[in-house]
């Protein structure tokens, strides 16, 4: 209660006696129903919260807003010192330029690679996850072994991949990136789906098995539909990881299979930086992920912490 008063708007240094007198006064004021002090304190606390929320929003949204605005500025606006904040004649010229210089191909490459990886990871991953959750295959260690693969540093496997793909003539192809992204999405999908399977009751599957349903049928027709929200959430996260991946993409692709993350690098020339095009590509790369993250809002924490926090 002491600190409550000190926190108040009329904070003045008080001696110990004054504080205790104050406390008695405060308590009796509360008993009499005079809640002015409490009300102002609450008001102050909540306005401090709003101030902090606004400051945080400004800090975390400013860079995103800035790169979005850049896509609509003229070169004389983003190459002005000090910079102009609001574009005066916004146009879609950079988007058109991005489309003309192979932006659509980069977008479709990204879509093809992310979608294929996601579907494969979900299919293979949930089947494995089902066996881990229901039949406890491999005991406790196998799930944790699979989880640990999610943290493999890309640089530890990149050189062998380079040599293999060169030998297979797979450099700069979709299948190369799809295979590599499976490496990271599969452990993730298995681990997440195992958590979701463990949460659904097993009685329905058991009675289906007794009725002569095959284990595969029990998985496909009973368990999988029950975990479909988890399946969608896991899929969205796999999609986001593949979509935003850069290290392997820049190492493996050159021109045919470039994804958006590699494509954008082209606009950062040694001599000249095409900020407008960088802004436009950034918007194209951000919007789908923003929409997807809103769709799985309920599973965000779970998805980002690999199921450790629900």
């Amino acid at each position, binding site marked *: 209660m002491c600190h409550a008063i000190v926190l108040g708007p009329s904070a003045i240094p008080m001696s110990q006696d004054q504080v205790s007198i104050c406390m008695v006064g405060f308590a009796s004021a509360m008993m009499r129903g005079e809640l002015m002090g409490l009300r102002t304190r609450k008001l102050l606390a909540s306005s401090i919260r709003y101030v902090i929320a606004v400051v945080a929003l400004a800090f975390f949204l400013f860079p995103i807003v800035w790169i979005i605005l850049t896509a609509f500025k003229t070169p004389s606006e983003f190459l002005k010192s000090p910079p102009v904040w609001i574009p005066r004649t916004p146009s879609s010229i950079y988007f058109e330029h991005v489309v003309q210089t192979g932006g659509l191909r980069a977008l479709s490459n990204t879509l093809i690679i992310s979608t294929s990886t996601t579907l494969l990871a979900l299919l293979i991953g949930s089947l494995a996850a089902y066996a881990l959750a229901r039949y406890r295959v491999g005991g406790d260690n196998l799930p944790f072994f699979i989880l640990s693969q999610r943290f493999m540093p890309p640089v*530890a496997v990149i050189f062998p991949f380079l040599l293999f793909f060169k030998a297979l003539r797979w450099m700069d192809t979709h299948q190369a990136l799809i295979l590599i992204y499976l490496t990271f999405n599969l452990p993730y999908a298995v681990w997440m789906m195992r958590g979701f399977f463990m949460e659904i009751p097993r009685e329905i599957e058991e009675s289906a098995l007794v009725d002569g349903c095959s284990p595969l049928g029990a998985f496909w027709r009973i368990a999988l539909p029950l975990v479909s929200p988890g399946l969608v959430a896991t899929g969205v996260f796999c999609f986001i990881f593949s979509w935003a991946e850069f290290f392997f993409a820049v190492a493996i692709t050159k021109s045919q299979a470039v994804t958006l993350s590699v494509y954008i690098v082209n606009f950062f020339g040694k001599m000249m930086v095409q900020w407008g095009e960088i802004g436009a590509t950034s918007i194209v790369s951000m919007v789908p*992920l923003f929409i997807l993250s809103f769709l799985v809002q309920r599973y965000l924490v779970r998805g980002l912490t690999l199921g450790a926090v629900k």
Partner: protein
Amino acid sequence: MAATTEAFTLKSETPRRKRRDLIPWMFVAPCIIIILLVTIFPTVYSLGLSLTKWEIGLQERPFIGLGNYIELFSTARFWHALLITLLVVVIGVSIEFLLGFGLAQTLSGQMKGKRIVVAALLLPVMVMPVVVGYTWRLLWDAQYGPINQIIGWIIGQPFTYTWLAKTETALLAILVTEIWQWTPFMFLVFLSGLAVLDPEIFEAADIDGASGWAKLWYITLPLMRPIIVVALLIRGLDALKFFDIIFTLTGGGPGNSTETLSFYIYQMGYQFFRLGYGAAASFVLLVFLAMFLTYLLKAFKSAVGS
């Protein structure tokens, strides 16, 4: 009658049961095969690579034992890259934790428009790291960047500091960027952690006259410990692989002063085609990662159970 049925089922069940036991393994098999093929095999291959002299222009790839590792450990640039990596992990992740926790503590509980605020605060996590790097490169720009402009407003005269051209401030810029992108992650995790704490504990503490700090230190932090450990480890492990933002924000510069280990290894492979040497460096990173990972797996076992 009962005995015969039992015997009957026993006899016919044995081979069937064996097949039944195999089915779960068949479910896991595709997954295990892919992991072995795409992760374990390359890693082992990479270990072999790190013991050979694999360089462009060389006809042979002689086995040189620990030669690459010895060269690595006597290279100042490698140690510097390791130092930068650990700085990002330790300083970056600590500040993310403090800011994220503070923000979660402030914004927990009821608030008007909270859902929108939380959703908006989370957007940085969803931006491609490559885009994040370019965006901040523009923000820090000496002439065209709004950061110098705002500082100029505050001090009342034009300010044109070249943040990314000096090692100390380039490192600062990297840390700010990393903190910007991942503080929201910490915030979200702690916000949902705080939401499930039992309010009765805090009410009891209030009755006992506990101060705000005492409640934080003796109740909130101990209860949140498992979540904090998991969040720190996940972030730390990902930060060890820090690459994309370096690539687009500073390009490792000025000079090589902001190279992380991943960036250094990439350079070794792509600029100098020293695959053996690069593979050796990647194994050092792998060892660091493995140490963190053991803790993470332990934390997971206690947080989610098995």
